[in-house]
């Protein structure tokens, strides 16, 4: 187990290395430098460009820039070693002057706790979506398994098929048009994120797919458990049906569902950029999309790396949780 874990963690290194390398190379393959991106704006004059290139280390050979980004490099003026991405230093943003990428992503505004940083916002939205998925999806799955082929089962089957196949941003469009444009229950683009009502629709939209998946998984798992011999034994002992359902069925049926929750959270945190953009939500996803349209390369690189780490850790956690819950799976 421990050796497996170590091996998997080591396997992360080449994966992250390749993610950064591909991203880095693609960005350098893009025509033009970071200073002449926008033809509408005033062009930066050559002397300033030179200075900026020196400041951001863009005058060095490409391999050195890459090493400097990932591991670090000696500052050309002071001679001091500046650590790179391995120490969490993601470099300065090209567009938001005077701020580093890690500040934009992880630093909350003055005097606010960590939860008000971009990353904190995304985590909170992901947690909200996950709890909606859990508190609606699991009961829905249990109910439709207990009342198979009833109208509850059929409508839940329809909604889950819909939720699994239709992408979240399309569902978001439907919900915005229903609740914001037609019924005027919520603002189309919420401005005030301290108002809990603003969070409801983005959370629901983000969690809808996971909710549908959880409900379907829970139903399947319950149906499987209900056929087991120990349920028959419990009935034969004369236990109350309530007790059988609560203690014997649900408890066992929850196992496969629990395993997906960790990775689901990572997927929700990382997969939210289209939802965040849609609702103007101040999380890392919106920063990412903005960086794309501004061509803020260091920001794109840094966010991709963060996403890559989260997704890789989520994949790892799936395998570990599985092996803990189901000893038949050998790692």
């Amino acid at each position, binding site marked *: 187990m421990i050796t497996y874990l170590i091996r998997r963690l080591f396997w992360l290194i080449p994966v992250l290395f390749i993610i950064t390398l591909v991203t880095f190379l693609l960005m350098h393959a893009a025509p033009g430098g970071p200073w002449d991106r926008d033809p509408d704006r005033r062009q930066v004059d050559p002397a300033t460009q030179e200075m900026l290139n020196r400041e951001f280390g863009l005058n060095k050979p490409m391999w050195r820039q890459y090493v400097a980004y990932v591991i670090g490099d000696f500052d050309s003026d002071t001679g001091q070693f500046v650590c790179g991405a391995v120490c969490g230093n993601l470099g300065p943003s090209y567009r938001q002057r005077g701020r580093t990428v890690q500040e934009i992503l992880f630093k909350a505004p003055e005097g606010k706790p960590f939860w008000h940083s971009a990353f904190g916002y995304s985590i909170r939205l992901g947690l909200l979506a996950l709890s909606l998925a859990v508190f609606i999806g699991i009961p829905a799955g249990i109910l439709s398994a207990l009342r198979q082929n009833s109208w509850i089962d059929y409508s839940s089957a329809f909604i889950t098929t819909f939720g699994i196949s239709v992408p979240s941003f399309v569902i978001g469009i*439907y919900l915005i048009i229903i609740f914001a444009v037609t019924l005027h229950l919520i603002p189309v683009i919420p401005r005030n994120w301290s108002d809990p009502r603003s969070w409801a629709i983005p959370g629901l939209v983000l969690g809808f797919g996971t909710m549908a998946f959880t409900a379907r998984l829970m139903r399947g798992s319950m149906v499987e458990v209900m056929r087991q011999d120990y349920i028959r034994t419990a009935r034969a002992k004369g236990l109350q049906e309530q007790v059988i359902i609560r203690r014997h069925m649900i408890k066992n049926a929850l196992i496969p569902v629990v395993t997906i929750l960790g990775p689901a959270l990572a997927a929700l945190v990382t997969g939210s950029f289209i939802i965040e953009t849609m609702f103007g939500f101040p999380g890392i996803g919106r920063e990412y999309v903005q960086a794309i349209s501004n061509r803020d390369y260091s920001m794109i690189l840094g966010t991709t790396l963060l996403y890559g780490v989260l997704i890789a850790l989520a994949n790892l956690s799936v395998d570990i949780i599985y092996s803990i819950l189901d000893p038949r799976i050998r790692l």
Partner: protein
Amino acid sequence: MTATTASPQKPEVAAIEQTHRSRNQWQDAWRRLIRNKAAVAGMIVIGLFVLVALFASSLAPQNPLELHDGKGFLPPAWVEKAANGKSGESEFVLGTDTIGRDLLSRLIYGARVSMFVALVPVIVILLIGSAIGLIAGYLGGRVDNTLMRVTDIFYAFPDLLFFIILMVTLKDTKLGQAFNGLLLLFLALAMVSWVGVARLVRGSVLSLKQREFVEAARAMGATDTRIMLKHIYPNVLSPLVVWVAFAIPGLIVFEATLGYLGLGLRPATDPNSFFITSWGVLMLEGKGAMTAQPWILLAPALCVGLIVLSFTFLGDGLRDALDPRAR
């Protein structure tokens, strides 16, 4: 003499063999598939969308790029008076966008892009993935190890992030502009998705190559290529068919997502261009006018939802039909 005694039985035997032979695995699957109502409904919807995509130029009531002066912001034809005070006109069935282009015509041309995104990369992905999966699974050993390590890395790379970075950086190059950016999109989709097919094929090949019929073929002196293509590959086809049915809606959604982020197809200005607009691009346009003209956003969103659901129903039906034991 012997011929006369045997003759009364012979036609009967032949007839039995005939009926038996006439129903192979695929015909059986087809019978099971058309008994599934949801799958049939899905197939009909998909068929309609394919026809719309093929005959977009004759079906579209208006030129999708023509700006109708003073006819912007029109609601759908059946709306008497919309929130913006305008009423629908019968010429523009689903209304017009902000600058007076017919929405229905644009939607019809959008179907063309979605159908192409569904078909072209799938073919490329199937070819690459099958070839690599077959070779890795059949040859095994070092070849297999190397190929699977490569797929591991591709697998760990977040798909959507890869697309986004590729589209952002290569958007202004020649490659990024070919076919309104669709060539790059196809390449990106193919590069990421072949891994799934390769793993699927390899897994099946690993178990199939241990079976007796492969041994029999080898004993009869069949070459490796022949065994792979004639004996093993046909047995991998049914999981691949199911994979395709589920992969296509995924590809359509990717196109729509990228279009919605402004990274997919570049909207054409030349009316002779084959690819004019896509549903993702339409959604992006509709997002800007969400409160005043929600129908611009809703129409492509409904199309995406409908086509994706149709493919899911078809995929579920195919899975049940091709592997009845798995139910």
